[in-house]
């Protein structure tokens, strides 16, 4: 067990390698109950959230979720979060390590008619992720839930809020279930999926799969010293939606161009670029590794690096400090691996043939 944002969580249940393959080839079951969950309710809750987050939540209707960033006045990323639009108000899911900071930020900015309630300890959250997740989840009607959509249903006979979201690059679901019933659902999913190769998956497999999918981890790949454009998340910033915290600075960053960029690196077996390791090119230091691991699935180590803008193009060579020596790396396109996750533009694309 390791400490993760104050929660005791398993790095692995059996083996990181086996759990990683289960997620990529069948499905893996993660306990992500450590994520912070807030309910935001009240007459002006939409307007309030719109002023806190970077994406445009105005068009969200009941049953839709959206990936968002929350920035400080300087445009630095306080956290990344998913905003769920419910029938009465909103629900947000934030990083465990930021829960208390986020909660006070929300409450500090909330007008009198908006109530922000921490529901983290009443609802458990589990994630079932993999190319066979829909087939193997004991629940009917899942086809009606689009990517980044959610609905209600019974999973193994127990009521759940079911969201087609995740952090692995695979298709799959995140299930919000009453804490005192979640154990039964967990056991039923594992028992039913055993023959197909379903495994419980720990933090190690979660980090490897999210990194292959190039999903950013707050605290590693971004923090309050990094703006969304540097993190490669400019697509979540809707400058035209009206005022929100950080907008003025972000408008200027967009106009001037970001000073740093996040790039993907492929490395040689045995060379793992660890968080903070120096990245250089032609003898000049240009940045640092933000996340790195060995990908059992791809068969080589991968890393994300925050480097000076325009220092690299895809295909370029880079040098990374590994155990005090210089290790070669190649700049590659992100994501490192594209899993079975449906895309938001899926419908639009299929309409055009």
């Amino acid at each position, binding site marked *: 067990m390791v400490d993760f944002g104050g929660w005791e969580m398993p*790095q692995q249940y059996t*083996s990181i390698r086996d759990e990683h393959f289960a997620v990529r080839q069948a499905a893996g079951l993660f306990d992500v109950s450590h994520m912070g969950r807030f309910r935001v309710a009240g007459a002006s809750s939409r307007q309030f959230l719109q002023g806190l987050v970077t994406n445009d939540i105005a068009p969200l209707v009941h049953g839709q979720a959206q990936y968002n960033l929350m920035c400080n006045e300087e445009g630095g990323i306080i956290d990344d979060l998913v905003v769920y639009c419910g029938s009465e108000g909103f629900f947000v899911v934030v990083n465990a390590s930021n829960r208390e900071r986020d909660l006070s930020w929300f409450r500090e900015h909330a007008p009198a008619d908006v109530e922000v309630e921490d529901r983290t300890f009443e609802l458990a959250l589990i994630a079932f992720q993999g190319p066979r997740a829909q087939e193997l989840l004991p629940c009917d009607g899942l086809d009606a839930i689009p990517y980044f959509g959610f609905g209600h249903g019974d999973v193994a006979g127990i009521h759940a809020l079911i969201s087609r979201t995740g952090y692995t690059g695979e298709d799959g679901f995140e299930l919000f279930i009453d804490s005192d019933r979640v154990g039964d659902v967990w056991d039923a999913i594992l028992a039913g999926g055993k023959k197909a190769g379903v495994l419980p998956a720990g933090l*190690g497999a979660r980090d*490897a799969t999210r990194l292959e999918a190039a999903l950013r981890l707050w605290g590693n790949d971004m923090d309050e010293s990094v703006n969304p454009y540097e993190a490669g998340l400019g697509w979540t910033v809707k400058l035209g939606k009206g005022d929100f915290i950080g907008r003025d600075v972000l408008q200027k960053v967009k106009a001037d161009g970001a000073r740093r960029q996040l790039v993907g690196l492929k490395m040689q077996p*045995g060379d*793992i670029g*660890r968080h903070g390791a120096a990245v250089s090119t032609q003898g000049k230091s240009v940045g640092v590794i933000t996340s790195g691991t*060995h990908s059992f699935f791809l068969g080589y180590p991968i890393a994300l690096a925050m480097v000076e803008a325009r220092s690299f193009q895809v295909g370029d060579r880079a040098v990374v400090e590994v*155990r005090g020596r210089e290790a070669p790396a190649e700049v590659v396109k992100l994501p490192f691996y594209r899993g079975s996750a449906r895309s938001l533009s899926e419908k639009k694309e299929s309409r055009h043939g």
Partner: protein
Amino acid sequence: MADRRYTKTHEWVTVDGKHATIGITDFAQSQLGDVVFLELPSAGRKVAARETFGVIESVKAASDLYSPVAGKISEVNEKLASKPELINSDPYGEGWILKLELAGDLPADLLDEAAYKKVAEASSH
């Protein structure tokens, strides 16, 4: 089977006459998680007791390896180059790391199983 002795840095050693075999403990492999790579010296190199002789890299972190005893390396487990996971699956058997020809006496601070167990328990909290 010779007695296995341990270090506070989670290596083990077994001694048979002048020959020693060393590896890392089951507790160490469970803390490291899946091992992906080992950087090891070549046979013929001399090491002192508690000297760093290599690096073990797991998905979680890179850690130094320390020799529990002094001696000259006679053999390196070549299988670990292609199957580093042997460290996880069989740390006291197929996952051995080095064989040494002992030089001098065994260090006095090597731990027996009961004493090592206490060290491991203390570091898991």
